[in-house]
């Protein structure tokens, strides 16, 4: 019983991270139709920002998280303006551009951080929350979980309660009809990638004290993000959040009872099964021609 409860807590925290970066990916794909392969590297840039400013130069953690969000958002906006917008009529070009950015960001990370071992960030919040004498949750993870939840809550409010959020959802549903309603597609695209990149930056910054930071850390992130996106339903934000929690729980429990290797295989199998049984994903909607 203790192991089950500990695994549920581990799964929920993991789900929070998965949701943060998967939602950003979904947002960018939904609005711009671009599969952003560099999304994992945006997470990596967020983590590196924390390593450079907090671990190397002693800048307090909270301001550094804000700076990481700003830095990654700026990169996202530059990608939109100079890569995705000029190639918006060719989805393949956008994809290839994002792969190019992926490599550029990896090389830049090597230039900034040098070669050698993965970077480590000492956790700003030391210690462990112990509940009922057996549930152990590091304060750093508790903090990250609540910030992730707050970030996703803010996104939900933005999408459902603000004019820009409505416009963004409209563009995600039908670009042409939205344009005919007077919505500025370029501006909305910029907001979408800005928000998506900001979430990636936040995820990277929060993960930094908990992960091995290296130029290639985005690789695992993007694979997880794709699985979550496909399971949740491509283009569905609520689906991505739900799938993130389901996938994290699934992966955590399989790891605990059958091992990490089996968990990886089963995670991919889960995606395949969803694609066979419900190709649109858990919350995706079939669009007729």
């Amino acid at each position: 019983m203790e192991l089950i409860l500990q695994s549920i807590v581990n799964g929920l925290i993991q789900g929070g991270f998965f949701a943060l970066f998967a939602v950003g990916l979904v947002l960018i794909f939904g609005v711009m139709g671009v599969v952003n392969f560099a999304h994992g590297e945006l997470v990596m840039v967020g983590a590196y920002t924390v390593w450079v400013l907090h671990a190397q130069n002693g800048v307090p953690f909270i301001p550094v998280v804000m700076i990481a969000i700003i830095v990654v958002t700026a990169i996202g906006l530059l990608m939109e303006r100079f890569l995705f917008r000029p190639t918006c009529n060719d989805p393949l070009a956008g994809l290839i551009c994002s792969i190019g950015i992926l490599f550029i960001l990896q090389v830049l990370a090597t230039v900034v951080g040098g070669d050698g071992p993965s970077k480590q960030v000492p956790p700003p919040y030391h210690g462990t929350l112990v509940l009922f004498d057996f549930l152990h949750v590091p304060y750093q993870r508790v903090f990250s979980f609540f910030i992730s939840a707050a970030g996703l809550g803010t996104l939900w409010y933005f999408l459902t309660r603000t004019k820009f959020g409505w416009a963004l959802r409209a563009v995600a549903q039908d670009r042409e009809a939205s344009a005919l309603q007077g919505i500025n597609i370029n501006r909305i695209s910029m907001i979408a990638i800005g928000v998506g990149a900001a979430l990636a930056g936040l995820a990277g910054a929060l993960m930094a004290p908990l992960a091995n930071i290296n130029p290639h850390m985005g690789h695992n992130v993007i694979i997880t993000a794709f699985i979550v996106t496909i399971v949740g339903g491509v283009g569905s934000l609520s689906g991505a959040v739900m799938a993130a929690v389901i996938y994290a729980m699934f992966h955590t429990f399989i790891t605990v009872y059958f091992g990490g290797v089996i968990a990886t295989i089963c995670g991919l199998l889960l995606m395949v099964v969803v694609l066979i049984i419900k190709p649109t994903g858990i919350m995706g909607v079939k669009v007729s021609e």
Partner: protein
Amino acid sequence: MKITRRDFLKKTATGVVLAGVATGLPVNVFANEKTVKIGMNIPMTGDYAPWGLPGLYGCEIIADDINAAGGVKIGNTNYKIEMVSFDHAYDTEKTIQGYKKLVLEDDVKMVMMLGGSTVSSILPWAQRKKMLTTTLLPSDITPKSEYVIATCESHPLYNVTGVEWLAENFPEAKTAVIVTNNDVEWGLQSASTYKAAFEVAGIKVVDVNLHGFDVTDFAPIVSSVLAKKPDIFCMATSFYTTPLMEQLYHQGYKGKIISCTLDYYNEIIAKTSKEFVNGTIFQFPDFDDPALLQEGIHFPDPNGFDAKFRKNHPNDWSAVAWEYPAILLNWIEGAKAAGSVEPTEVLKALKSNKKPNFVFGGGRWWGSELWGLDNAIVGRWPVVVIEDGKARIKEFRSLTDWLDKNNDILKKNMKALGLRTV
């Protein structure tokens, strides 16, 4: 004799040119001095860089010291040593490319490598070119890999010394879990050795948890193995010692921790606490350890080397920082004995020495029992424990004694994990 203005100018100019040439020539032209190139085909970027780059830094320190002292006399020639490196980033294609460059273009006399799939990829080349090649993984040795030797690290055999010491000093520890990455070159080799060592020590292994390289969160893995209530948590050449230690700390683990390596342990302390990391047992000393000053250690001024390394490269010390230099020192010994820098001659001289100078002493050629060829030097190996936040050697133990007694148990455990033995 009449000297014309033209003659004067001609002779003066010739004299000036000759004098200039003579004074400008390097001294070594007159002293029968040459340069011998030693190659390093290692990962200097990417995930494996910590087990490559610090070794190059270490070798450069040793080579600079030797060169500053006038070089090394091999046969009748005085040689300066030049390190030539190639970054293969642990990619087999690049490894072959680098090996060819070092051998064909740079004319190196030995190629030092990390080991694993990168060494397998150049084996045919090493054989064809008869190029002396070194590895840190003696499991790379096959009955046909005549030119591949492991003169320093006998990964992961030395892990048995840590288990032996643990069992003697903490007899109350009776159960263990092993966690590692599921690769054939590092994780499984190490896991099988630890399993054998625990079996010999009478410690029951209650779980072997193998994971891939795609793990982003170690909390579930640690929760899973801690549910077995182990007395000992063993990290078998894990690439993830920091996140594993972090999870052990947060999940309140109180038992003994044993690991093959504990590179960058200061970062682990920063992420957990000194009190938590204290007592962790592993196998790779810092070289400022006073225990390295005792007799039988074949490494010149280890404390000075450590100080110089950390001054030049403050954050780069890892397990390999002293290993590649120790191999370089072995080579120098072999070349001196051979009176030649030619790879086949040096290999012959090294192999003919039945009591080679192993870095920690007590060395002998070994390997045919496990891999079909005596091309690895095994000897004493240190058991290192973190004390007050610092790695300290507790004891040197004989690996050869353990192997002589327990080779069959080791082979059985290797076969159980599908590993190659003779």
